[in-house]
């Protein structure tokens, strides 16, 4: 099951993330049997099947409306003028 795969793959995962072999830490000891893990998965799936759901035509519409209501005040969407820009280029000082 997933768990057995995981132990073997963990070394691969850490290496993939660019770490050198010497920094691999010890694997977590998890002494649940495969049967116990599967039983927990079955119980979890039973719960999830019962979750309330709404159609995308409804929820997608709400996402769209959320965006439209706020698009006007989204600085990364609209861009902001140099006056309001806290990151604008610093001017040079002129001393008389």
């Amino acid at each position, binding site marked *: 099951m*997933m*768990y057995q795969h*995981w132990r073997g*793959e*963990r070394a691969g*995962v*850490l290496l993939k993330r*660019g*770490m050198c072999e010497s*920094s691999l*830490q*010890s694997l*977590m000891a*998890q*002494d*649940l049997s*495969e*049967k*116990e893990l*599967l*039983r*927990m*998965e*079955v*119980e*979890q*799936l*039973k719960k*999830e*099947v019962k*979750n309330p*759901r*709404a*159609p*995308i*035509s409804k*929820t*997608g*519409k*709400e*996402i*769209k409306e*959320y*965006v439209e*209501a*706020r*698009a006007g*005040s*989204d*600085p*990364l*969407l*609209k*861009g*902001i003028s140099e006056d309001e*820009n*806290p*990151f*604008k*280029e610093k001017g040079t000082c002129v001393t008389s």
Partner: protein
Amino acid sequence: MCDQTFLVNVFGSCDKCFKQRALRPVFKKSQQLNYCSICAEIMATDGLHENETLASLKSEAESLKGKLEEERAKLHDVELHQVAERVEALGQFVMKTRRTLKGHGNKVLCMDWCKDKRRIVSSSQDGKVIVWDSFTTNKEHAVTMPCTWVMACAYAPSGCAIACGGLDNKCSVYPLTFDKNENMAAKKKSVAMHTNYLSACSFTNSDMQILTASGDGTCALWDVESGQLLQSFHGHGADVLCLDLAPSETGNTFVSGGCDKKAMVWDMRSGQCVQAFETHESDINSVRYYPSGDAFASGSDDATCRLYDLRADREVAIYSKESIIFGASSVDFSLSGRLLFAGYNDYTINVWDVLKGSRVSILFGHENRVSTLRVSPDGTAFCSGSWDHTLRVRKTSFHFAV
């Protein structure tokens, strides 16, 4: 503002497995015992399934997964981009780098904004954690961690402390002090202890609690003051790489992503997984809630970003292109939720139109992988950190309409 209180379990040795965990009372033949959440879960199902075999459980799991897919498919009546058909298309963007933060001696792995929309904390492979003033590019604080690969860092909501951790398997909190005579490292507080690397951390609504994710496959909620474990979250089948807390208005949940390709939504009070999504084809490196809290985006090594709608309980958009073949390491939304910024391992940042599913801009500049990316709290800028040792703060100069 009062802090939310979570059920503080008794912490101690589980009566079944004897591990040091957060415990809850269970009743067995009218005797009260204290079990950890895993043993309690197992006990709840014990005795009800005497004649189960491994095979019967496997087939039950498969048929339930099929049922879940069926239920989810029933509500897939339209695609998100169809709902957004009449929304005006976005034109050309000009997004310029306004500040480049230089000072890290090695790969930048993580960054976070302070609520003051100005300060940034960043952490690096060389063990250094730096607090910057992004307006002036000055380094305000720097601390050297005892470990390398500081993979996680976070700013406290008050702006008075930072949290960080990595290969030391811990999450430590450092109060920020401007007193030149005080050594920041001396005030360090070790809060979280995992059995493998710390991959992500985040304060909750206050400075008092921290949520962590780890290579040991779990997430955990900790009390900062006492270091006590308040709740643990088990369910990922491999390293957890990222987490994000729901916006405070939506309640006490958070989402996590892992090397098991799953994104899981958790109830912080009960420790239970509420919803799980397994549509990515590789590790999920980054998860971020949509500003409304009704959806979240993920970025993965499979070179795609995806949007999951929590109320429709399914994936509703995939942001991908054939030309994009490198993994997405980090994602974040603009203020309105119209734009999704994603940093990739091919050194670029792609900007996606969340509603229409198309890419609206590609940003160059970093000279190595983009490892971390966050939009500022007021949405005026976004900052990206890279393996090229720098951080870049960018803003939109112009948006030319179509």
